[in-house]
């Protein structure tokens, strides 16, 4: 079965060489999908990515799932990295980044969620946006004018607006969808993501502050998002939301403090 899949994918590779976004010479594209108990969705997500980006490698980071997420992902043709316990979204993502950095053959990386909310066709458009030249990181945004009208709950939208305002205050840049997990980026961003500075709790607005403070170029592009049918969310419940807000504020404060201290001590803010 695997051989058949491999054979089919190599035919697809050849056919899709022109369809996929132009990567740097000799470079490939890696799609990182962190997943926790997503056995019901992960095969569909991996298949969607394979169809949208036929030449890309897909790595699913199984964040200590208690269901068969790893098996489903592997059968769908993805490389699976399994964390032996549930380490959290940020640690799972960074495992994928470290895999990409260690492989050394990926010049473009795309990250997307494993619950099927992100439309895989967005990955190709984000990469095309990157190829246009003036961005190190492109965020798939729900709030650009060309968005698909995906409705974010009011409370969450308030939170996103608050952190978007904070990012603007701290960096002077307006980024509307600061919590989007759909991103495409290059090796410069990957260098920051695998460093110790990467905030591995909930990498959202704090990561954008880190990248912008490092002088990296961040852009937004419209992205289609689907409603989450399972009702699962990392930010569900009053306590989780409160904890998220406090931790994010602390994380942003520490990034700014660390950047200023580094600049003061060595006149160099980024590694």
């Amino acid at each position, binding site marked *: 079965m695997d051989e058949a899949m491999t054979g089919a994918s190599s035919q697809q590779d050849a056919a899709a060489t022109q369809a996929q976004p132009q990567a740097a010479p000799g470079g490939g594209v890696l799609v990182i999908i962190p997943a926790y108990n997503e056995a019901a969705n992960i095969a569909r997500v991996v298949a969607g990515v394979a169809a949208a980006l036929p030449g890309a490698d897909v790595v699913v980071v199984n964040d200590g799932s208690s269901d068969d997420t790893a098996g489903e992902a592997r059968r769908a043709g993805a490389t699976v990295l399994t*964390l032996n316990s549930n380490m959290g979204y940020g640690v799972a993502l960074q495992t994928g980044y470290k895999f990409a950095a260690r492989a050394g053959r990926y010049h473009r990386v795309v990250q997307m969620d494993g619950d099927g909310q992100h439309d895989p066709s967005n990955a190709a458009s984000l990469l095309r946006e990157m190829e246009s030249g003036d961005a190190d990181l492109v965020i798939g945004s729900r709030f650009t004018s060309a968005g698909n009208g995906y409705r974010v709950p009011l409370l969450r939208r308030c939170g996103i607006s608050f952190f978007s305002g904070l990012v603007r205050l701290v960096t002077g840049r307006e980024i509307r969808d600061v919590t989007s997990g759909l991103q495409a980026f290059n090796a410069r961003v990957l260098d920051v993501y695998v460093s110790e500075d990467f905030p591995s709790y909930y990498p959202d607005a704090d990561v954008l502050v880190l990248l912008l403070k490092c002088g990296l170029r961040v852009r937004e592009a419209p992205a289609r998002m689907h409603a989450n049918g399972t009702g699962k969310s990392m930010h569900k419940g009053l306590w989780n939301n409160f904890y998220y807000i406090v931790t994010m504020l602390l994380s942003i404060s520490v990034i700014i403090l660390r950047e200023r201290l580094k600049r003061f001590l060595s006149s160099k803010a980024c590694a």
Partner: protein
Amino acid sequence: MSPKQIAFMVAVFAISLLLVMRMIVHHRLREVYAVMWIIVVFTLPAAVLLYPWLSSVSVWVGIESPLNFAFFMGFVFLFFICLHFSALNSSTQRILKDTVQRLAIIESELDDLKSRLPEQGREAGAPDGAQPSDPTARS
């Protein structure tokens, strides 16, 4: 200090010392912490025996009561202990995170290598792509 107070301090000292020694014997304290807690335990009788010295130091730093000075020093000590263990916990968490990530990547690479072994063996001309002594050769 009254004899009653001294007796109380001696009792606290003896119990603390016994507890620390017991933990050392049963390998429940790392060497570095064992030494630190022994020093802490011996500070208690030292403070009692050197009470006049404690009084003069507290007057010198501007604290009227020697007991307040002792409480203040206890607070400073606990502050540094908490700071030390926060740093240690952060460091341990970072090491754990890096180890778990590294393990996941290496496991994946190992699986990849294992899946390639038969193919490489076939290219090299070995039957079924593996060594005859390999217990996984026919699996």
